[in-house]
């Protein structure tokens, strides 16, 4: 009948069944799993492995937690408003801003009826954003009056203080004196100098917002504190 082949196959299966546990028996002692003969060994190896490993894991977690906490702490320290403002702490930048703002205000608020081009050029060179319309609105009347009276308006900044510098933006408080001299017209040169002594000085104060662009500080906002 189907004797030989059937028999051989059955024998092979039986052998395999016997061989399998034998094969697994070799790594079993190291494996703490369901090993049948490893009971005595696992008792010895079990406490050894976790102690070191658990300690290492705990150390890792602790160190990681400290790193995260210290990082957050450093971040929050750096985010303090006092630190983000570099006015005076960055002396070079502070004096650069002071100088450029003083010059800008001098030019932006001075007007010579004989040379309106200089005024327009100052506005074009030094203003950006909403400061363009603010400047136009602020000086529209002044300009009209100066043209009518053939006047020369000279603004001189007397004090500047940088309120804050935040990267490429800054705000500066400016005190300025403004003098207005009505000339007889015609050749203004000498007459202007002679008349200046009689000029009326007006005290002005304003806050100027500036923005750093292409290596220069441009005026981006003018705040006259609600006064023209």
């Amino acid at each position, binding site marked *: 009948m189907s004797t030989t082949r059937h028999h051989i196959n059955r024998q092979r299966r039986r052998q395999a069944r016997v061989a*399998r546990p034998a*094969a*697994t028996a070799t*790594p079993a002692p*190291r*494996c*703490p*799993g369901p090993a049948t003969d490893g009971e005595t060994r696992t008792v010895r190896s079990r406490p050894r*492995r976790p102690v*070191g*490993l658990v300690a*290492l*894991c705990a*150390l*890792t*977690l602790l*160190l*990681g937690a*400290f*790193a*995260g*906490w*210290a*990082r957050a*702490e*450093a971040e929050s*320290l*750096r985010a*303090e*408003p*006092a*630190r983000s*403002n*570099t*006015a*005076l*702490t960055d002396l070079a930048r502070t004096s650069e801003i002071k100088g450029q703002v*003083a010059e800008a205000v001098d030019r932006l608020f001075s007007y010579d009826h004989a040379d309106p081009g200089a005024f327009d050029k100052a506005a074009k060179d030094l203003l950006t954003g909403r400061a363009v319309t603010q400047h136009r609105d602020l000086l529209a009347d002044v300009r009209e009056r100066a043209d009518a009276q053939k006047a020369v308006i000279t603004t*001189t*900044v*007397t*004090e*500047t*203080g*940088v*309120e804050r510098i935040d990267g490429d933006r800054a705000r*500066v*408080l400016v*005190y300025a*004196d403004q*003098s207005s001299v009505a000339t007889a017209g015609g050749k203004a040169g000498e007459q202007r100098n002679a008349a200046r002594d009689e000029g009326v*000085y*007006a*005290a002005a*104060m304003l*806050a100027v917002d500036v923005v750093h662009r292409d290596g220069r500080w441009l005026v981006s906002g003018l*705040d006259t*504190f609600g*006064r023209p």
Partner: protein
Amino acid sequence: MDRPVRRLTASRFRTPYAPALALALVAGGLAAWAGQDWYSAAHDDRAAYAVQRDEALAAGEQAVQNLNTLDHRDLDQGLDLWEASTTGELHEQLGSGRADFAERVREAKTVSTARVLSGAVTELDERAGRARVLVALRVTVRASDGTRTDKDSRMLGELTRTDGRWKLSALGQAPVGGAPAG
């Protein structure tokens, strides 16, 4: 089926220290870096200077406002505040002229209130404890007949640190006309 699985777990249990140790070392490195970063952030000279600057400005603005606020109905408290906000020469001046000044205000029956529009520190000597501030101020004076006048003032103040607090040691208005930029 269960043979490869056993093998895998067995080999993992055999060398768990190496990756765990590596992880611990990485965590240690991170912790050292973060700790150092935190330390440097906490001991930043610029930051300490910035904090002094902001304290000086806050104290300066408050003091300038105090010295421009006075109610004739509450003279003593107002003038006490004036003296508390000042130090040095200015403090002495206010103290010696107090009686005369109080009498004048009592007669004029005025109420002055001040609002700081803007302020900036122009100089700060952290060690000497001296600072200069610009304070743009709007003072409103109510006269006895009810009329109100607003006046803007360009104040220049000098502060001196006494007992850890910034107080005004000089106060004046920026001169108008002829003063060169500086």
